[in-house]
């Protein structure tokens, strides 16, 4: 584990001092000095693992994410509250696998936490190595709803990526995937095989429109599993990636 650099420790100390000040409710000189001492002691006694953050916080992205998050929170709360009080049979649900674009621990965690806070979606399982979230969605009645739920998770992740300033550096369809140290790039998939979010097999254009994201997601997951177990992905699948 790489040791934290001085600026990184300063950020940690600042964060703890901020909480300390909020707890005390005032910002007198003694409170601040006491907070700094306690924060440094806490860091020395309980050194936390380093969380790599390979982006740049985009203020506009954060505002956009917060606004969308609050909107989702209100809409979804009302929806689940209605599901609870409406007469009729219990609502159906589904467990949906969503492959994420970013594979860093930080982004998986942020996405999963935001998902968990929004009603109607609940992270049942997170596959850290393959960057797949398994999300329990309530109030779905058709496969189209399932696809919409999957798309909503991807949109949420996109907003987080945008807010943390890594979206521009993530590969899109057809780009080769390179390993980078900042953890934002998909270091665990082989070159050119992973991270196909929307590309559907060429033959599927004649099928119903909502089949495409499903197939792309399923294939994406298969590719990631294959990458992990070391088995080769069939050449025709590679072509589409």
């Amino acid at each position, binding site marked *: 584990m790489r040791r934290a650099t001085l600026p990184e420790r300063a950020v940690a100390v600042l964060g703890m001092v901020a909480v300390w000040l*909020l707890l005390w409710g005032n910002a007198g000189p003694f409170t601040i000095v006491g907070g700094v001492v306690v924060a440094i002691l806490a860091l020395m006694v309980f050194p936390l693992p380093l969380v790599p953050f390979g982006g740049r916080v985009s203020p506009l992205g954060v505002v956009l994410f917060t606004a969308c998050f609050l909107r989702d929170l209100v809409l979804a709360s009302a929806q689940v509250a209605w599901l609870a009080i409406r007469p009729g049979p219990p609502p159906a649900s589904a*467990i949906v696998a969503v492959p994420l674009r970013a594979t860093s621990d930080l982004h998986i965690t942020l996405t999963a936490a935001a998902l968990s806070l929004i009603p109607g979606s609940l992270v049942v399982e997170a596959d850290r190595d393959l960057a797949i979230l398994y999300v329990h969605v309530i109030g779905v009645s058709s496969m189209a709803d399932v696809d919409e739920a999957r798309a909503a998770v991807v949109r949420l992740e996109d907003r987080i990526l945008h807010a943390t300033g890594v979206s521009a550096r993530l590969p899109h369809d057809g780009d080769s995937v390179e390993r980078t140290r900042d953890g934002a790039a998909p270091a665990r998939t082989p070159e050119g095989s992973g991270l196909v979010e929307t590309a559907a097999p060429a033959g599927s254009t004649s099928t119903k429109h909502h089949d495409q994201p499903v197939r792309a997601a399923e294939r994406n997951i298969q590719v990631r599993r294959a990458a992990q177990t070391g088995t080769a992905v069939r050449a025709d699948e590679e072509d589409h990636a």
Partner: protein
Amino acid sequence: MIDVIAVVLMIGGGLLCVAAGVALCRFPDLLSRMHATAKPQVLGLLLILTGCALRLRDPVDVTTLVLVAVFQLATAPVAAHMVARSAYRTNRFRKDLLIVDELAPTIADRAPTV
């Protein structure tokens, strides 16, 4: 005027908590209930805290309320995830209510890592 807004927020938050309680009784299985308990609670609590902050207006009290909100937002997802995960892996949920379960094949593929 501020008091009116505070009252509206607190009543709104209270209603969401009531809906969460109703859902706890009416939803059929643990995974569905998690949606009700962990979620409307979040917005309900935020509304009530905002209402309280508008009524109290004392910086010391307001900063405490902010901390309550921050820690609630930070801890609720973790708790919800752990409960949901263990519920799924011990089969304490209604499979017949799921229209799709994309996790089942994955779990079956691998040795359980409970």
